[in-house]
């Protein structure tokens, strides 16, 4: 199956966006997952609610909210543009942000789940061996939560591959810039008789997902075997 130029461009863009999305959400996702797993504090419910917003609200609404925040007139957008000269609206960066926001709750929940299952006594054991908080986190908590982090990453990656609503609302469908696989796919589905190229795009998406899944499976089995021995 030869890919057309358009398909290649959408594929590459999707990959770029998805990988960035995972890369960008990983650190804060892990941190927040840890905080939510380990601490009880006032206002936790509010954080939770905000965190789950991208799931609970339709993607278009999230895209709109992003637009309000990151648009040229949005305070975050203004601030980014002023300070770093980064423009996210209508660029692939914006698409990455949209994906990141949509995938974030998945990432956090997965991380949180596995962090909450890490035995705190192992962390205490590490601290009696002289490891400070950060070191305990990096050498004990994090590796023990690896399966969850991996799950979070793959969920966020997959979600990002399929992200449509927030992306199109936030950054639109600009050829070569923000037309990711789902956006390209959308175009086809909205045109009568374009079923064949649509199916091709579906297959491409699935192929990407398959590769990612197999990779994560291998990593995951390695992580698990580290935990359980061989």
């Amino acid at each position: 199956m030869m890919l057309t130029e358009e398909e290649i461009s959408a594929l590459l863009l999707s990959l770029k966006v998805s990988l960035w999305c995972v890369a960008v959400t990983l650190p804060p996702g892990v941190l927040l997952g840890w905080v939510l797993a380990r601490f009880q504090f006032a206002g936790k419910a509010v954080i939770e609610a905000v965190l789950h917003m991208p799931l609970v609200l339709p993607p278009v609404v999230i895209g709109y909210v992003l637009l309000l925040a990151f648009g040229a007139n949005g305070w975050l957008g203004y601030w980014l543009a002023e300070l770093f000269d980064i423009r996210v609206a209508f660029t692939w960066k914006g698409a990455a942000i949209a994906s990141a926001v949509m995938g974030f709750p998945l990432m956090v929940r997965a991380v949180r789940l596995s962090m909450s299952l890490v035995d705190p006594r192992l962390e205490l054991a590490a601290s009696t061996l002289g490891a400070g908080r950060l070191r305990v986190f990096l050498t004990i908590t994090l590796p023990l939560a690896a399966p969850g982090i991996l799950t979070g990453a793959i969920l966020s990656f997959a979600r990002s591959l399929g992200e449509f609503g927030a992306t199109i609302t936030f950054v639109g469908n600009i050829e070569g810039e923000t037309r990711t696989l789902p956006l390209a796919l959308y175009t086809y589905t909205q045109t009568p008789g374009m079923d064949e190229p649509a199916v091709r795009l579906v297959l491409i998406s699935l192929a990407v997902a398959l590769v990612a899944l197999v990779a994560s499976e291998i990593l995951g089995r390695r992580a698990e075997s580290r935990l359980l021995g061989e």
Partner: protein
Amino acid sequence: TVFAAASLTNALTDLGKAFQSQSGIPVKFSFAASGALAKQIQAGAPADVFASADSKWMDYLYDKGKIDADTRVDLLGNTLVLVAPQGKGFKVHMAKGFDFATAFSGKLCTGVVDSVPVGIYAKEAMTKLGWWDSIRYRVVGTEDVRAALNLVERGECGAGIVYETDAKQSKKVEVVAKFPADTHAKIVYPFALVKQSGDAEKFLDFLKTKQASEVFLMYGFTLQPR
């Protein structure tokens, strides 16, 4: 059940209520993108009336033999306009050779130019006017007209191409110019019965009444001469 393009939402909702109180026949609506609706009908959806935002999806169903061709009627029309954020209007000359690309800064918002009807019309018009190549990579495709309009309202885009109906409803945009009718295919909203049923036919007839026309006009649609 009436399957109607999302852009008809408010007009048809009002008319549905009016029809229901007059005839006592309940009307249900399903508003979505024309394409989605057409595919649903194709898949056997329990639709009685289909109101599409363009001919293409009506043709699609026609080809598949899913509509009652005799009842098909282009009930409404619309006009394509160029808008800009309120107070950010610019001069434009609807003619070949006009350097549209430098006339405004920022992006141009419209429906996705390959699929969303408004985008298709916009691309056609700009191509006719010879503007397309220079503007192509500044075009932001949106899911529907409302999203495009919204982007212009918020000043994210320097300009937008939308329907007049929508532009009229917004106080945050100004209409810079109307595209001449000859720059693009006629913008029509074809209606048709999906299957024969007395009640559905009555509703379709009701939409053709003067009372209905007034409502359509109020929401900014143009009436297609019949």
